[in-house]
């Protein structure tokens, strides 16, 4: 059904940000306008390159690049399959907006060492694209580790004591995770199994003992679980909040955590496969952990006054939506999970953009300081409101769509309890985000100074993402056929979702 053909396009997509990083580095601080435009240009080209593969992928023809044989019998191989396309499209298109936003933010904050910042920023997008397009386990590990590495200077960018401590914590967590992945990957290869991802599980037809399978599951899932911040592996994420906001946006909406959940998708769907996990009774464990994270994360978000921290815990909770959706092993739930990757990316990046804009513009960072800010910054807080509505799962926003499928998916596999979890968490999300909106628009501001909207380079991107959160809810198939890609993956993995697809359109 799926045929592959050799093409260099996936490689170009991965290399584009690297080229941008080089250009940024060579241009340097003296020509900052030229330097800062490279990122945006590269981002636009990258979107075009990735999107150019879309028609073929939708037809079931998958472009694939084999780069080099890196270890006897194992190639570094990139392949733009449907799942990878979802992540790559999301990352590249959000990068366009984030790069514009980052320029505005960094200048408003007068951050130092901006060249290094933009170099690392571009490189992490390259690594994220690499994660998206990895065709086998070793390639995945490679880009996963590179992603850790290039985001490290971003986390520690401020160079304060807190930033360095957070950076160490980040490295400790993610490197340990990476090592588990390496161990797991090596083991898979030693079992004589080819590490190339197969929808439905590359281990599906292999005869491996239960103990081995559990060992592998531990290694591989903990490996990707660190970045997707499933409790108890989430500790790095709230600390990493010390980074400049464009980084937090990147970490939490686009590159790092999404690489983590994307890894979860790869492991569960493409490595283990539904049958094996059902046989092992392993999916319940993952699902329960994810459900616990989901609820605890939401509750912790409630009690944090610092806006960015609140958003961080919200991220932890929402990532587990996705993990839970995948772990349910049903086609509908998987469709919902993949849509949630996209929807949460768009929504959460809006929220972070807003938090950063407020901070850069007014130096406020706590929720309790935000009284009346909506009247001063109507566009910013308007976008925030849109995103908050989406987070709470109000129709017709994008996260309603995905939550709808997630809930439906839970029902489909007769796990109504998880449907309840989803609903409760939606209420909690409303609980921690709506007070912000309320304060911003209905409370009277203690400030008497009019400061107005922030720099347009920050406001425009966040307005766009805010509107996108609504737009994708109404038309999930536009502009990049996310919905179709998601159902394609789900069909290939767990069986047909046609009934559902017909009904949803």
């Amino acid at each position, binding site marked *: 059904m799926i045929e592959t053909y050799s093409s260099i396009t996936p490689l170009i997509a991965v290399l584009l940000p690297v080229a941008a990083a080089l250009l940024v580095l060579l241009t340097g601080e003296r020509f900052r306008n030229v330097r800062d435009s490279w990122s945006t240009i590269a981002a636009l080209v990258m979107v075009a390159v990735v999107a150019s593969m879309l028609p073929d992928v939708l037809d079931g023809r998958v472009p694939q690049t084999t780069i080099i044989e890196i270890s*006897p019998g194992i190639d570094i191989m990139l392949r733009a399959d449907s799942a990878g396309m979802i992540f790559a499209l999301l990352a590249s298109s959000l990068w366009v907006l984030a790069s514009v936003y980052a320029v505005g933010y960094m200048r408003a904050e007068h951050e130092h060492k901006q060249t290094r910042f933009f170099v690392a920023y571009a490189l992490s997008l390259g690594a994220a694209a690499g994660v998206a397009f990895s065709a086998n386990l070793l390639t995945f*590990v490679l880009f996963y*580790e590179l992603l850790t590495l290039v985001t490290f200077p971003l986390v520690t960018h401020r160079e304060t004591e807190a930033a360095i401590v957070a*950076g160490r914590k980040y490295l400790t967590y993610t*490197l340990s995770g990476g090592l588990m992945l*390496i161990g797991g990957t090596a083991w898979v290869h030693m079992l004589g199994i080819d590490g190339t991802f197969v929808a439905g599980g590359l281990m599906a037809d292999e005869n491996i003992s239960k103990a081995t399978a559990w060992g592998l599951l531990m290694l591989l899932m903990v490996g990707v679980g660190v970045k997707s911040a499933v409790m108890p592996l989430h500790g790095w994420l709230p600390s990493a909040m010390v980074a400049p906001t464009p980084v937090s946006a990147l970490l939490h909406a686009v590159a790092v955590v999404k690489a983590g959940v994307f890894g979860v998708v790869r492991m569960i769907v493409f490595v283990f496969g539904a049958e094996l996990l059902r046989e092992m009774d392993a999916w319940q464990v993952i699902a329960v952990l994810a459900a616990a994270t989901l609820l605890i994360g939401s509750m912790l978000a409630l009690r944090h006054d610092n806006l960015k921290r609140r958003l961080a815990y919200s991220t932890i909770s929402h990532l587990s939506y996705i993990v839970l959706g995948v772990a349910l092993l049903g086609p509908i739930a998987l469709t919902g999970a993949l849509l949630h990757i996209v929807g949460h990316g768009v929504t959460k990046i809006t929220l972070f953009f807003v938090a950063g804009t407020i901070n850069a513009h007014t130096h406020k960072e706590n929720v309790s300081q935000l009284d009346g800010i909506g009247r001063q910054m109507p566009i910013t807080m308007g976008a925030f409101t849109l995103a908050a509505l989406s987070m709470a799962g109000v129709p017709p926003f994008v996260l309603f769509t995905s939550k709808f499928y997630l809930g439906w998916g839970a029902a489909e596999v007769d796990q109504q309890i998880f449907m309840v979890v989803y609903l409760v968490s939606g209420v909690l999300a409303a609980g921690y985000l709506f007070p912000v909106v309320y304060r911003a628009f209905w409370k009277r501001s203690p400030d008497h100074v009019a400061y107005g909207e922030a720099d347009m380079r920050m406001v425009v991107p966040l307005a766009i993402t805010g509107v996108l959160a609504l737009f994708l809810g109404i038309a999930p198939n536009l502009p990049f056929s996310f919905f179709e890609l998601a159902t394609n993956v789900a069909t290939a993995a767990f069986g047909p979702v046609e009934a559902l697809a017909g009904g949803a359109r």
Partner: protein
Amino acid sequence: MLAALIVPVVARLRYELGFILALAGVGLSAAASIWSLVYVLDNGTMHYNLGGWAPPVGIEYVVDLISAFVAVIVTSVATLVIIGTRRWADREAGDRLGSFYGLVMLLITGLVGMVVTGDLFNLFVFLEISSLAAYALVFLGGGRAMLAGFRYLILGSVGGSFYMLGVGFLYFSTGTLNMGEMKDILTDDATARSVQAGAAFIFAGLGLKMALVPMHLWLPDAYTFAPSSVNTLIAPIMTKVGAYAMIRMFLSVFPDGYLKDVVPIGDALLVLGLIGIIFGSVAAMSQKDIRRMLAYSSISQLALIAVGVGLGTPLGLVAALLHIMNHAVMKATLFMAAASVRFTSGITQVADFTGLGRRMPFTMGAFTLGALAMVGIPPATGFFSKWYAVQAGIESSQWIVVAVVLVSSLLTAVYLFRILESAYLHPLQPEPSHGHDVPDGFGETEQELALEAQAREAPLDMAIPTVVLGLSTVVLGVLNAVIVINILEPGIA
């Protein structure tokens, strides 16, 4: 083929001409090694009988894939290091430059000789030649280096003597010193107790030379106090050749499986290696002097090679051999960068590295590459030796090996990221406040160092070899499959 061996000797004879001849010597030697590697790839193993005597009696030189591979590493790393540390040598050796380069050539002759020889006793002679040169070079550092050098000499001689004793036992049991013939004889009958005793003594001797854990005491002091031009040279290659000799014992002296099943040397290597990996990393974490930190890190990395050998499987040996190359390149990068830093600013303490990322972008860039390779971030080289080691561990169900190798990556990250952090993330200091850890005998150069503290990047002829070494960690990492498939796997088969 013998050119690889002779050229350094010839250059040594005319050592008064110093650097140029030394460079020409090593360069030619490197070229000859590469040529012999290519030749062996095409035509199979080379044999050469010294003085025309037939092998069992005369001394035979054998160049097979593995020895050619190690010879290429030794000579090419040495070439780059000699170029890169020329300025250090000028400063440190002063009017004794001639004898300095003489010793360097002697060292390399000894190392290459150890690699290409096919005779057990001849290996001892070359081992002592290279060690002798190394003792003297370390001693050149003056001050504490003199004590370190003396201790190195005593312990090194014990190692050499143990090895010789072991060879004695083997000789009286088999009546030959030729490696190939000994393997044939031992394959027929290796039950004698004296063979086992010989194996144990050889293991102890070579273990000392490769600084295997309880026998590592000479190494940290020797590396820390030796002149920068010297530790940069001996750290990457000296202990590696000890490790190579150990591999040679496994491959072509004792029968297959003998050192695993009959004498538990494989297990001993494994256990000591595992302890060494952890011990070296933990010790490195607490060091304040970068050279000492790198020295302990060497102990840990050599222990990884020992683990690969100790596993005894083909995959384990691949890991060990690959790590010989990787570690040579990575450690050379790190020591070169450390030497460049000390050259331009006199800094040796980790805490003083603040802001160096700004001041010396290329040197520290290379250092970063080397450090990342050590940690094992793909696609740099270090990742792949760990990858094969982990695979080998899984293959033989030695789960503890898998765990230790993986954890060691993390520990390595701890001590190396400390340096990167202070180099890149702490604000630039106008001038290093303290930490001119210059040995006592260097009173006059200390002022020079202080004068150059303002300098920015290291001189080009130091920076370029450093960067070349740094980049090669990545290039060799990407190309590792080529090396493994074409050289290592056929080589150990």
